[in-house]
């Protein structure tokens, strides 16, 4: 067997993980080269090749599978470099992308403008037609008018077309016809039809998904094909797969038809990694995954060994950004990290964020001109960071600068510098505690019965007190924590979803109609499997879900079906009972008297073309390692205490330390607070516990 490589290209860094023939991970990092992504990839590969004593070319030639995670689509949207896209919708409803779904942040805040729609109104065209909620044709498609519109699009040089008509989910005739007109009049111009991409109820969500997808097609098709040829040119002869927002990956041929699925694909892999790490350490079940970077803190969940999905994922802020509409792994992001700025408000309380020093100018200790005290400055002052060994010694930090800015804040508060720095960390933790609290509560997960998997370069500073506050006893912090998403890809599968909207309720359940929808889903999933170039004989699993709610509710909950077909009333009753249980878990109430409405039906196929790395046998044997040095650190009890400092490279499986202690890994620092302990497992993960 050859190597397997996974790559996560972030906005700043490209993380690469290589799995060798002995099932060991090797991590390489390099700066992302956004002009030509493959260059950054090859630079990261060089780092690994050097460590293995080989050349990058040899490694690549000996690689069977390369999984590529990209932020290309996200960046294109942020920088507004997507295709010039026309949006076609039902006559009378041109403002669906303007109106979005409502909601506003801050009832008394009138300081910001209403957002622009994803596709401008002047690129929006109304089609004379109307389908009713039952799929009935209220107003037939005016083909002549539609033809005129498409000819106009051609004349005006649109590069992509998004078509989302009202009720195309109930009857796709009109959308399909417009698709034919586009193929006829504008052959070769990519387009997306809403009923094919995201056949879900709610016109804004469907339209937004369709618009985003179409606008990405020209760019992502070119990007992925170029990546393919760059890799071929570099001697790669294996299979290229691309990771997606459903926590899996797909072949390029599939993805160029649905490039929207590459959005948020990086964060979506963190829960995949977390699930794998928890399983390796025999701590499966409910897992909270935290990925702490320099400016954002991402939280995701694994519930009962399963990934958690959402249709409420936005590009940009909730409500005012653009909803992705497609189902994605539910990962919430808050603006909090090492760069968050501490300040004192007019009422005299210390606050942290939401302003951030980012990476430029960055925290004061970076020496880049930052003048505001940040969380990283606080960690440095407290002794948690070795100023000469930050990021593996690649950046020397200015401790005096950190002390100066925190000293100013301390004077305002009437506290000493250590107390102030400690207070900054405590308050920064609060933001993260609330973020974790919200996602767990939303999904009915009890943090006290969950394990935390932490990743990202900044997690080690504070994950233990955060977990303790939430009542989680155990934190897993993998040695490869800084490349959590890339690691996740190594444990992932080909994942593909098919959806049908078929509305019915338990008071008069349309079993025939639902089974027809499920059959269509099955057919689509199996056709997808058959289309795959690799993995013909791979292990396949299919799960089925319904998005359901009580009658008159507006928001649905995902409820799993235990089988692919509802054979009789007992099967329906079981499904309805499963919904009641889900509602009870999430909202703490069930209403047995109420009819249950079923809205969208969904199938998710997972195909595993390769085996994940095996888990090593666990061992409880521990030993006390020798500290590399000691440093005086402050943990909030009024005095600094001499604290042993361990170098991660010196530690072997079974090494166990009790707090206070600090473990320095090249890309992360783990603070073991007093009253806590850390142990290095056989698999290479730090297991952190409250004593």
């Amino acid at each position: 067997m050859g190597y397997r490589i996974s790559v996560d290209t972030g906005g700043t860094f490209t993380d690469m993980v290589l799995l060798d023939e002995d099932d060991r991970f090797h991590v390489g990092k390099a700066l992302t080269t956004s002009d030509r992504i493959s260059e950054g990839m090859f630079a990261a590969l060089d780092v690994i090749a050097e460590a293995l004593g080989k050349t990058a070319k040899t490694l690549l030639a000996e690689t069977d599978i390369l999984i590529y995670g990209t932020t290309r689509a996200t960046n294109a949207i942020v920088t507004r470099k997507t295709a010039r896209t026309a949006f076609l919708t039902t006559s009378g409803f041109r403002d669906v992308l303007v109106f979005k779904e409502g909601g506003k942040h801050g009832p008394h805040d009138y300081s910001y403008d209403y957002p622009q729609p994803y596709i401008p109104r002047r690129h929006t065209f109304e089609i004379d037609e109307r389908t009713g909620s039952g799929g009935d044709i209220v107003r037939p498609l005016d083909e002549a008018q539609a033809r005129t519109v498409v000819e106009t699009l051609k004349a005006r040089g649109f590069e992509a077309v998004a078509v989302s008509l009202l009720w195309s989910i109930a009857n796709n005739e009109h959308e399909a016809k417009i698709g034919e007109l586009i193929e006829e009049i504008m052959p070769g111009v990519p387009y997306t039809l809403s009923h094919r991409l995201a056949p879900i109820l709610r016109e804004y969500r469907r339209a937004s998904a369709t618009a985003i997808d179409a606008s990405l097609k020209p760019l992502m098709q070119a990007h992925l094909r170029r990546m393919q040829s760059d890799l071929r040119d570099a001697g790669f002869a294996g299979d290229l797969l691309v990771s997606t927002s459903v926590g899996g990956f797909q072949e390029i041929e599939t993805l160029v038809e649905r490039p929207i699925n590459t959005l948020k694909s990086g964060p979506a892999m963190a829960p995949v990694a977390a699930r794998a790490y928890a399983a390796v350490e025999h701590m499966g079940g409910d897992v909270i995954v935290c990925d702490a970077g320099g400016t954002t803190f991402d939280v995701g969940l694994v519930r009962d060994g399963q990934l958690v999905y959402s249709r409420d994922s936005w590009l940009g802020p909730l409500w005012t950004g653009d909803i992705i509409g497609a189902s994605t792994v539910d990962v919430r992001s808050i603006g909090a990290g090492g760069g968050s700025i501490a300040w004192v408000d007019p009422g005299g309380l210390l606050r942290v964020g939401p302003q951030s020093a980012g990476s430029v100018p960055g925290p004061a200790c970076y020496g880049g001109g930052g003048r505001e005290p940040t969380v990283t400055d606080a960690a440095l002052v407290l002794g948690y960071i070795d100023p000469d060994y930050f990021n593996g010694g690649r950046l020397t930090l200015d401790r005096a600068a950190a002390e100066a800015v925190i000293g100013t804040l301390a004077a305002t508060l009437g506290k000493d510098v250590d107390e102030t720095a400690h207070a900054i960390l405590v308050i920064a933790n609060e933001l993260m505690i609330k973020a974790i609290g919200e996602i767990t509560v939303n999904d009915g997960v009890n943090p006290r019965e969950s394990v935390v998997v932490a990743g990202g370069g900044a997690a080690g500073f504070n994950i233990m007190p955060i977990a303790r506050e939430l009542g989680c006893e155990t934190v897993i912090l993998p040695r490869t924590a800084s490349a959590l998403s890339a690691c996740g890809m190594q444990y992932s599968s080909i994942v593909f979803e098919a959806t049908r909207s078929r509305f019915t309720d338990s008071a008069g359940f349309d079993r025939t109609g639902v089974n027809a929808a499920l059959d269509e889903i099955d057919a689509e999933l199996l056709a997808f499997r058959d289309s795959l170039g690799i993995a013909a004989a791979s292990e396949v699993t299919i799960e089925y879900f319904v998005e359901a709610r009580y009658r008159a509710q507006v928001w649905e909950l995902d409820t799993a079906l235990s089988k692919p077909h509802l054979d009789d009333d007992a099967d329906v009753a079981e499904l309805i009972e499963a919904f009641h249980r889900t509602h009870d878990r999430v909202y703490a109430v069930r209403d047995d008297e109420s009819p249950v409405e079923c809205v969208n039906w969904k199938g998710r196929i997972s195909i595993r073309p390769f085996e994940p790395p095996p888990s090593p046998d666990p061992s409880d044997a521990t030993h006390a390692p020798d500290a590399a040095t000691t440093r005086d650190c402050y943990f909030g009890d009024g005095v600094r205490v001499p604290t042993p400092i361990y170098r991660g490279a010196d530690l072997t499986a079974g090494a166990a330390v009790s707090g206070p202690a600090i473990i320095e890994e090249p890309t992360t620092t783990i603070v073991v607070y007093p009253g806590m302990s850390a142990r290095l497992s056989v698999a290479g993960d730090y297991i952190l516990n409250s004593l």
Partner: protein
Amino acid sequence: MSEPQTTLDPVLISVMANRLDGIVREMTNTLLRSARSAVISSARDFSCCLVTGEDELLAPAEGLPVHIFGCHIQTANMRKYHEGDIRRGDAYLDNDPYGGNTHPADHTFMVPVFWEGEHLFTAVSKCHMADIGNSIPSSYFVRARDVYEEGALVFPGVRIQRDFKNVEDIMRMCRARIRVPDQWYGDYLAGLGSARIAERRLEAFCEKYGKDTVKAFMREWLDYSERRMIDSIRRLPKASLTNKGKSDPLEGMLPDGLELTVKIDIDPDAGEIHVDLRDNPPSIDAGLNTSLGSATSAVVGAIFNALDKDLPRNEGAFRRLHFKYAEDSVVAAPTFPHSCSVSTTNVAERLVNITQSAFAQLGDGHGLSEGGAGLGAGMAVISGRDLGRGGQPYVNRLMLSTNGGPASAEADGWVNYALPVIAGLMYRDSVEVDELKHPIRVESLSLVTDSAGAGRRRGAPAQQIEYGPTGAPMTAVISCDGQHHQPRGVIGGLPGTAGETWLIQDDAQPERLPNVAHVTIDVGQRIRGRDSAGGGYGDPLDREPERVLVDVLEGWETRQKAEDVYGVVFTGEIDDETLAIDAVATATRRDELRAARAA
């Protein structure tokens, strides 16, 4: 100013405040997602908060501004009515507009939270119910001459649970009188569930921190909030502001509408704002009277619009606001048995507008223009029978189209504003969801070009909707107060257009309806409603031409209006993407317009 007299570590205060905020957010999320009626789950017409055991508002969620004031009066009444007989496991329902509540449609669920035998908190969720047993199928009844004609079931601090079990007598009363009782019960479960979740979390909170620390925290958090309020008021100029505005007429009852007055004295030295609401008409024989809770909330919310954006909104902040009320008035002082059925909208909307625009008298940079007002056809309460579902009845409030928001000194108006009392917090209904839930069809729904109040910052444009029933006739109750008096601009900004409603049988001859209408729409007929647009802020001739360019490109304003009102002249065309500002012609045009004004 009281100096900080902190006995708790300020870091602990921040941490505890954060935890309480997490609890009210959880209450909000639970209620939002599990409620049945669209008025709660879509329109977000509900609010959650925590009140101290001594009846001080401690921590509100980010809820509707019109709910912010009054819950503490309701909890005080609950304690008074049930003195000596309140215990863990109880829950109470209050919707009495004469007892601190906003209006009868807002069912307020109160759960007293005990720790070590002491009543430390009351968890409160206030939900606008789709139906409350009124004599007409709407929870808004503008023309109700008194509470008896209004017909709402009123629960003055009534116990609805003991030992965590429903008081079934009350449930039967509600089921016997409320339309679509299952929908009410579903919303009851959601509202009560939200308060019960808070109870669980608060008990854990008390266990973690201990009673003494919790009590000290409550005191210090309110003191901190007061300090923030003082600081914010101190940065305003000293001034006495008086502002007036008019409400729409009510056919056959109030031909001239009501003239409303708000007087505001800002005393930065004392860090106080005094509000005088006495100069207002006496109570009227209609549902337009505003309760103490609604009217005060409307004004308090509008004052917060003029202060720092992130002030804590609680009793500590309220200590710095002082109100004077009349003995008998349509504003904040109704006399029984006058009806307060539409107390949270109509007059309350005007109060928000009058108050927030009064602050613009302080000069450029202060206050807001008036926002679009009125529950138009897109926010009507519709009802009827659903033939596709065996003729079962339905009743619900729509949130399909909304008014345009006001402009500020910095930003253009918010499109999804809804009403001054909602301030953009609501969700819009999905057309597909509404068509699925009810036998209706929406024909069109779009922004209205050239409707926005022009200004350096522009109000948000109006929206227009047209819809009708598909199977059987439908009743629509429209309680609009936004069709006669346009939302005004400030600091030289122009007014937005007013709303209108029509009944359409024949497209050539739409029949204009009055602003308050209770109509039956037959199959084949449609109702067309246009909402109002927000007023502008500042002189339209000072609007950056780049902003006008976007407005014209996007069809929010026409090229003609750009030239006539904003004085911006373009070259090129929209369709071929060549539209561009003609800087020279624009300068000339603006000079001409300024000269014409001076003449």
